[in-house]
Structures are given as C-alpha cells and as structure tokens.
C-alpha cells in the first residue's frame, strides 16, 4: 500500500481495522441495520455476546470502495477479527451455526445456542452510539 499517504480514507479504514479487535463494516448501524445481510450478521455477532466496533459504510461511497480495495472482498458486510477478514454474512452466519464464531471471537459459545442464527433486528430501534472512526 504505497499510496496510503495520498488516500486518507483507506488509511482511516486500515487504522480502524488495526485498532479494533472485532470490527464490522456494515450498511446502517447495529441498532438500525439498513440491509438484511448486515442485520443477520449483527444478530449473529450479538448472539455470541462479543463486543464489536461497527462502521456504517453508507454515509460516503468512498468508504465501501476503499474497503473493498483493501480487503479484496466485494460485498458488505465485512467482519474483521484481529486485523483479518473473517468474511461476509454467509460465512459469519455459517460460523455462528457451527459454534466457530464464538471461538474466533474468543468468547464462550452460549450453552443454549440455537441451531439457526437469530433473525436480524427489524429497523425501528432507537439509535445508539456506535464507534465510527471513519467520518472525517
């Protein structure tokens, strides 16, 4: 990444990934997901009880563009753990259902884990503070 100094958005994304052990780039916020795939991913993460930072990619199209260029992954959401891309919605939900997600996140899997991932929250919940380092 030789162009980081000329690319503040990509640099901010890389910093956010580096600085947060678990970080989800999504459409909308955990409280108000703007897409079903993001909602399902948030629901799986929340079901593990793990804490995670979240970044809404919608406010600026360059966030998604730079994120995908950085991660070599074309779709949203994208979950990173310890600086590494874990996957998008399909992989996160698959990992939740197998118990692998809790292990990757370093939390104990819930004893009463259901066979299927929980449904995503419907939009409408009140917005809460989320961590978002990318808005300049």
């Amino acid at each position, binding site marked *: 990444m030789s162009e980081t100094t000329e690319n503040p958005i990509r640099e901010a994304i890389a910093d956010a990934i580096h600085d947060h052990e678990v970080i989800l780039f999504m459409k909308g916020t955990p409280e108000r997901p703007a897409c079903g*795939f993001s909602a399902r991913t948030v629901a799986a993460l929340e079901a593990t009880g793990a804490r995670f930072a979240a970044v809404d990619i919608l406010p600026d199209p360059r966030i998604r563009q730079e994120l995908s260029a950085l991660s*070599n*992954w074309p*779709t949203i959401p994208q979950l990173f753990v310890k600086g590494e891309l*874990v*996957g998008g*919605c*399909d*992989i996160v939900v*698959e990992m939740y259902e197998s118990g692998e997600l809790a292990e990757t996140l370093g939390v104990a899997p819930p004893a009463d884990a259901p066979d299927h991932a929980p449904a995503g929250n419907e939009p409408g919940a009140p917005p809460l503070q989320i961590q978002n380092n990318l808005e300049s």
Partner: protein
Amino acid sequence: MFVPSTEELKLRIESAIPGARAEVTDLTGGGDHFRASVAAPEFSGMSRIEQHRRVYAVFGPDIGGPIHALSLETRAE
C-alpha cells in the same frame, strides 16, 4: 451492462471455474439478489474466504453493480 438471470450466473460460474457445478436462485425475484451454491474441485485446500473470493472474482465489478447481492455457499468436491 448485462441483466442478470439465474441461468446467466450459473453459466458464468461454470464456464470460469473448471469442473464447477452451480445452483443459482433469485432470492427476491427481482433479478438482483441471488444465492449460489457452488461445488468445484479447485476449492479443495482453499479457505472459505478464498472460495468465496474465487466466485466473486468471476463477476468482477458486476457485484455491487447489476448484481446487488450474491449470497454464497461453496464446497470442494
């Protein structure tokens, strides 16, 4: 810009990845949200991330363009 169809997606995956077999469904009926189940010999030894990247790479910029969403399930065979 092509108008995606399940047949088109299946054909593109199976043409691009040797020996691949793909089942593609249109999730919404709207021709832009798809789900593909793909089995291919070359997935053997690849991580899940790499397998999904391989399928996404078949479509390049069409993902996020005419194909708004492509949900994937991949496996080696």
